[in-house]
Every structure is written in C-alpha cells, then in structure tokens.
C-alpha cells in the first residue's frame, strides 16, 4: 500500500479521470476580438478560461479587415 491509504493504481485511475475531464471557470465561445478580450480579462483576473472557435485560428472577422476606422490603423 503506497501512500498509507490508497493503492497506487487507484490514485492513478482517479487522476487519469481528472485529466480526461477539463475543469475551468469560464468558457468563451468565439475567438473574435470580443472573445479574445473577454478571455484575456478573465484570465488576467484569476479565472481559468477555455476559448473555443470554429476556425483554425482566432481572430474572427476583424482579422479579415485591412484597416479600421477612424484611425485607419492596421487591424492586426
């Protein structure tokens, strides 16, 4: 008996189960400029965030824009 009470195998089994389950505080659905900002703010204020997006990259429609008004800055 390792660890006094629980067999090593059981501990491993339990921790495996935890690994299979993802625990977080907030899920943000959509990785456009709004989703990114929400994720950054939450992560910076002590929450674990899952950011999910349907595209292969975050960025959303804003990434497609050439420049943004009224300053005409690059939208990247």
């Amino acid at each position, binding site marked *: 008996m390792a660890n006094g009470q629980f067999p090593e195998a059981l501990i491993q089994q339990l921790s495996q189960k935890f690994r*299979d*389950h*993802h*625990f*977080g*505080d*907030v*899920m*943000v*659905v*959509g*990785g*456009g*400029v*709004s*989703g*990114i*900002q*929400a994720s950054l*703010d*939450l992560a*910076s*204020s*002590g*929450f*674990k965030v*899952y950011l*999910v997006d*349907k*595209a*292969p*990259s*975050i*960025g*959303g*429609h*804003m*990434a*497609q*824009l*050439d*420049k*943004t*008004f*009224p*300053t*005409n*800055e690059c939208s*990247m």
Partner: protein
Amino acid sequence: MEGEAGDFQITLIKKPKYIDEDQCTGCTACVEYCPVKYPDPFNQEISQNKAIHIYFAQAIPLVTYIDDSCLYLKEKKCGICEGICKNHAIDFNQRAEKIEVKVGAVILAPGLEPYDPGLRHDYGYGQFANVVTSLDYERLMCATGPYQGEILRASDRKHPHKIAWIQCVGSRQVIPGGNSYCSGVCCTYAQKQVILTKEHDAEAECTIFHNDIRSYNKDFERFYQRTESLPGVRFIRSYVSIGREIPASKNVTIRYSTPDDGVKEEEFGLVVLSVGLNPPADYTALADKFGIELNAHGFCQTNPVDPMEATRPGIFVSGAFRGPTDIPESVFSASAAGSECGELLNYRRGKLTQARIYPPEKDVAQEEPRIGVFVCHCGANIGRIVDVPATVEYALSLPHVAYAQEQLFSCATNSAKEISDMTREKGLNRVVIAACSPRTLEPLFRDTLREAGINQYYLDMANIREHNSWVHSKEREESTRKAQDLIRMSVARARHLEPLQEFDLPVNKAGLVVGGGLAGMTAALSLANQGHEVYLVEKESDLGGMARRLHSTLEGLDVQQYLIDVVGKIYRHPLVHVYTEAAILETGGYVGNFATKVKSRGRVMEIKHGATLLATGAEEYRPTEYLYGEDERVVTNLELEEQIAGRDERLVGARSLVMIQCVGCRNAERNYCSRVCCSHSIKNALNLKALNPQMDIYILFRDMRTYGYYEDYYREAAGKEVRFIRYEPTDPPEVEPAVGEEGLGVLRVTVTDPILGKRLEIDADVVALAAAVIPSAGSQEAARLFKVNSNPDGFFKEAHVKLRPVDFVADGIYLCGMAHYPKFITETLSQAYAAAGRALTLLSHDTVVASGSVCEVNERKCIGCGACISACSYGAIEFRETRQGKKAVVNPVICKGDGLCNAKCPTGAISLKHHTDEEILSQIDAAVQP
C-alpha cells in the same frame, strides 16, 4: 450543454487539423509542395490556397491545417506533405475528438455574419464580376489579400478607376431577406475604404450612394469631413438600383436620382456593396444548444439594464451577437461580460490558476561573459538558404563565445530544454539565439533562460529568418554572410547585457470611482460585488447624474424607478462608501497605489486606492439659437422629456410641435455628433403621439442617425405620421414669433425642404431643440487632476480607440459613461461593467509586475536641462532637488521603456535598461565587418 450557472458541463467536438500542433513550427514547407488548390475562405474565395496551409499570415496558433479538399483525405492519394515535414507533424490518423469541459459560466461571442447580397439577386452580386461586397473589398485592399494589396477587378485583373459604394445593403430594408435595423458601421467603413482607395490610387473617382450618413461615434464627424474633402469623392443621397453589365468593359451601371437632375444611370468600373451585419450563421442552433432566447432579428435577447446577460443565468454575451456592434463596443462589452462573470464566480477566483516555479537565479554579473550561440535551421526555412554549420563555426570564432551549436527547431520543446541544459553544463552566462523574430518567441526563450537559472535579460535574438533567409531566399552566399553579421552584432550586444529585475508592487484592493451617475454607480457595484472596497465620489448632493433628468427609454425602461433601485443598492452595499457634495483636492501615486484627498460636506479625508475610474459624465448644451431662453415655448429635448413625464397641459394640448436636430453640434465650434439626439427626439415624438395622436410633429434633421435597432422606432414614428424634413447646415431653419391662423400666438418655423425645393412655413406651439451633449466641467477638472488626456472636443481620450476603449494611457485609471462620449443608458451600463472588469484585472492581484527594461538616471551626469521630462508624455520623469542642483528622477513604475528620453539627453545621463547606448553602439560597431 447541461447544468446551471456555476456548474455547466459542455461537450465540444474538436475538428481534426491533421497536424500535431506541438510539432508544427509553422515553417510552411508543406504548403509549398501541396498540389491541391482551393478557394481561400479567408480571402473571401477570391484567390486560391493550398489544401494544407496556415489560415492566414498572422494566425494564432501559427500552425498549418489540412482542409477537406486534401487528396489524401478524399482518396488516400498524395501524402507529399508527410514526407516533406521534417518534424513529423502531419498526422492523417487524427479523428474528431470529443471533449467534455466543466465551467461555471459561459460567454457567447460568436460574432456576426456579413449580409449575403447573393441571396436576393437584386444587386448583381454573383452575377456581375465587378460587384463585390465590402468584406471582399477589405481583402482586395489588404497587403495579405488575394492580389497582395492591389485592388483588381475580377473580370480583367485591372485597377478600377471609377468605384461606387452602395450603402444599406441588407440594412434598413423591410423586405424579405433584408434587415429592418441599421447596421451602424457601414457608413464609416465605406468612408474608410474611400480614403484607403485614394491612398492606393490618388486619381480614383469614388462615389458613395447613401440614405443618411450615420457617422455618429467619437471622432467620426472629422473622418466624414476628411473623406468628403478628398478630390474626386462624391456623396449622393439617393436610393439606387443596379442597372446592367456592359458586355465589353464589364462595367456596371447604377440608376439613381437627385433633386436637381432627376433619374440618371451612370457607369462604374467596380461596385462595392456596403453589406450590413447579420447574426452569426448558426444562430438558431447556437441558441438551442445554450438554451437562450433570441430577439426578433435573430440576435441574442438581452436585458437593457444588464446588457451582457442572456436569458439563461450564467450565460453572458459580448460583441456583435448582442446586435450590430462596432469594434470598440465589441471590446468593451467583452470586458463587461468578464466583470459579470467575475461577480458570479468571485468565490472561485484564483483556485484553478497555477504559478510556475523556477530554479534560483545564479548571480553571474561579476563573471567574464561566456556566450552561447544557438543557430536554428527552422527546418528548411533558414537551413536551405543559410549555411548553418559554417555559421556555427563562425560564431565560435567570435570573442567571448564559449559555445555554439545548431538546432533543427530552436523553439521545439526538446530544443528549448537543450538550450537550458547546455547553459548549465557549459557555464554560459549569455545566450544568443539566431532564429526568427523576437516578437513571437522572445518570451519563450526568456523562460528558457529562467529554467537554466540565469537572468532572463541575458538573452539576445538574431533574426536570421524574417530579416534574412525569407527575404534573401535566392542569395545563399550573401544570406550566410548576413546571418554571420547579425550574429556578430548580437554577440557584441550580449557582452553588455545586464541582469534586470522585474519588481512586484503591492496593490491596494480598493477602487475610487469619480462621478455618481449611472456609469459610476454601476461600475462601483460591480467592483463591490467582487469583494472590493469602493469609494464613490459625487459633486452633487444626490446620486444619479444625467439619468435624473431622463424618464423613459425607447426600449420602455422606467428610468426613474431603475435609478431608485440602483441608488438603493449603492447605499445598502457594505463595501461602497459614498461621498456626496464632494470635491477632489489632490491626487497622486501610481498603478496599484494611488492616494486621493477628497473634501465632502466640510470634511477632508485621504483615500488610498489601487484603481481609479473616471465617470464624470456630460451635460446638455444651453442653446443660444432659435430663441431659446427668450421664448419659453422653445425647450431642449431634456426639458421636453420632463414636461412629457409631468403631462404638462400646454404641451399635451399643443396642436403642432417642431423638433430641430443638431443644435450646438456638428458645427465649427463642436465638430462632433452627439449621437443620442436623433433617437431621443424619436422617443419624445412617440411619447407625445401616444398622449395626443392629433398633434402634428415635425422633425427637422440633417441625417437621421437612428442606428442599430433604433431604426425600427424611426420607422414607427414615420408610420405615425411624424414628418421628417431634412435641412442643409448652410440653410438652417428659422424660428420667429408670429400670429397664426386663428389669431393665436405661434412660433413660425421656416425651413427649406430640399426635396420639394421650396421654403416651408410651419406654425408651432412648441419648438424642441436637440441640444448637443457637451463634456462636463467635472471631466475637465478630473483630466487636470488625474493627468489624463481629452480629445479635441473635450471627451476623455482612451488608451486605444479599439483595443483599450475603457483604459487610459496611464496604468490603473479607467473611464466609462458619457465622459467618454455621448451614449445611451444601455451603452453606458456596458461600458461601466467594462471599466469594472478592466479594473479587476489589476485589483484581483496582490502585486503588479513592473518591467525591468525601464529608464534610470545617472545623477552625476544629469545637468537638469529637462529635455527628458518634456519628451516623456507618460509623466514618468520628474525633477528632484539635490545639493548639486535639480536632477531628473524616473518613476520606474510609470516608465514604459520606449527610450525616447535617452535620445533627448545631451549628456547620456538617462539610460533605458536593456537598450543602453553601450548595447546599441556595440551593435552599430559590429555591423561593419572588422
């Protein structure tokens, strides 16, 4: 999704990329060899991309993915990429993965879908080659777009010379397939496209066909004027229809009409459809999955006084899914949703986050420099051009280089470990990594140095990819020589690098909120609900600000009742301390540690706080126009609202009422649009019609700016026979007392109707002026005290219009509400939650980390000339009296490390750490072959 607020269980399907993301380095060798081309969705399918590719040049994660068009996926043929990839990152065996995630709350930010004009076939989109949408046009203009930033027509790949924009495509249209609301962004984005088009081709002729120009946001009026003043730019107010395609030229004709010339048909080389914003593509499925309700337009149903809340508890919404939204509002609604999540989940904050533990840092400052050089092949990206082994040999010949080696991919996990292992083993105290741009990977390699137990600032990166192999890919010898030069420069600099400490500053957990209107109170409550002490300072004796003069909103909110609720919550909250009749005497300190002296009802106290929120509101302009103040029948919009709420008999019994828009703004003195007045007038008109359906109401306007859902109320008002008459600013209405038909005294309003082309006389019993919203005196005072900036119109200037819309440039100070710009209650509330959310990113920490790369003054060399102080607009440098005269001293917490002051200093007394004169001069010296 199952469960409830605080405990949701969500099942996700992760689509396979067929790429091992940990192994892929984004080198794109596979893309080069992939034989399959298909229309690139990122470039609006205008150009082609390969079946394996990176989504776009700056994608995050910067790895490739394989599209369904892949031959191997379709027919088990090809597989070339598998052989090409040196890192074995291609994995055709990947399958869709089911992932279960447990979270306490959800933020929905699925964004928008541009309106598809192909569905209705009425603009020739999809039929005529030279009709594109505004999003297509964005890609055409973009340097990473289908033609590398050349604006070319699909029909002949030539530059169009005459371009037309058609506004309101899919917006403000009550037809099947159209949207009744105004999308709010198209007028201004079309102006932007015109300006950029003129930058591409100064000779281009640009025409915008519109119904109203709705440039209602901060600094938009000037933007509109800038567009209008460009040569060859026409704004034409007209409904239009697409005519035909000219067979030979493939030009497209547009039919329109003007009051002067009647109906015309004109030919254009390219037509851009300014498409509106639709809900995200899969909105009904999304709503079903998350169990939330949608509004009539298919956007998320939200609560006007809690604008980030969806109908199901624990689910919040941000960005364009709340309705047509521009970028700043998308960003601040995100911060706002973050703050609301924080209120819900405050009990579990910080429980799931982990801190990294590093080995203790070795003090090597006294040692002779022992530099290690790691040269990256980046697969073939560098290795195919630069002779890496020879470069490693060369590096070993440089002074102080104790070790050098090559690596296939320096950024791969095993390579980073190799760097930290070799650093320890060889006793290295400086590391040069010759690879790619420090922009992406410097943080990673700094971490590698920390793992190796030496200070993270002992790193320098020589960029031999973006600055070399990628841009000199045909010149192998030259490129190898340049790589060696760049390494020599890095080594020279590395010798002089110093260990720097990033220091932790304690954070006072309290917040100070200046201004007790709806913005200030909402922000204060959100902070307090997340466990923070809040000091709320209001100059008046009562809380409420501008909202005290409002009674209803178009959405039907009883403002006074709502205000009573909020004020009650404020006074009941144990963490909120209210100071009324208060004035701020002085304030000082810096992020996390401010101290402010407040005088309230005769008492003076000092408040210590970590964050400051400025919500100092706005005021209504007191008109000098249209007999205001001379004739009591002339009132402002707010006065009219009060009279409506009080059921003023003379008002309700009026037979005729005229509203005049844009009083005191959109003029030379106040060159901005007050944003709320058009909808405010509509609201008053609808309320009056409800009280007295017989009343004749006229609204004299310049552009009706009822953006977003407010458009529906504009339509409702028109349906109830409120009459809208446009006037030109050069020919404004006139108001004079007169005797009306029945011998009664009236106000005679004279205005030129541009459609009828003649002067109209309207006898009114009441004239209401849509008086401008102007910055409050309190804002000007706060700007001075807190050393924050205002824009030319006197509204607070945010750190970045789009990316930091509620932050000031100075850390730890935030803004919200009308002090930022005129806005509606719902918008004010979002922004207030946002300011609280941003403040939480600071207040939720015990300490803030200040960068090590900041300036420092050598007092011996300082002559007190002040050149540095006048250059530093952050106010990070001050004079200090010493026995040797006044000397500059830097507050490292405020310093941002740009180093401008260094170049200003005549004596070299001020020095930006990590970018010192010595470090840069050593690079300059080493640039030339010895």
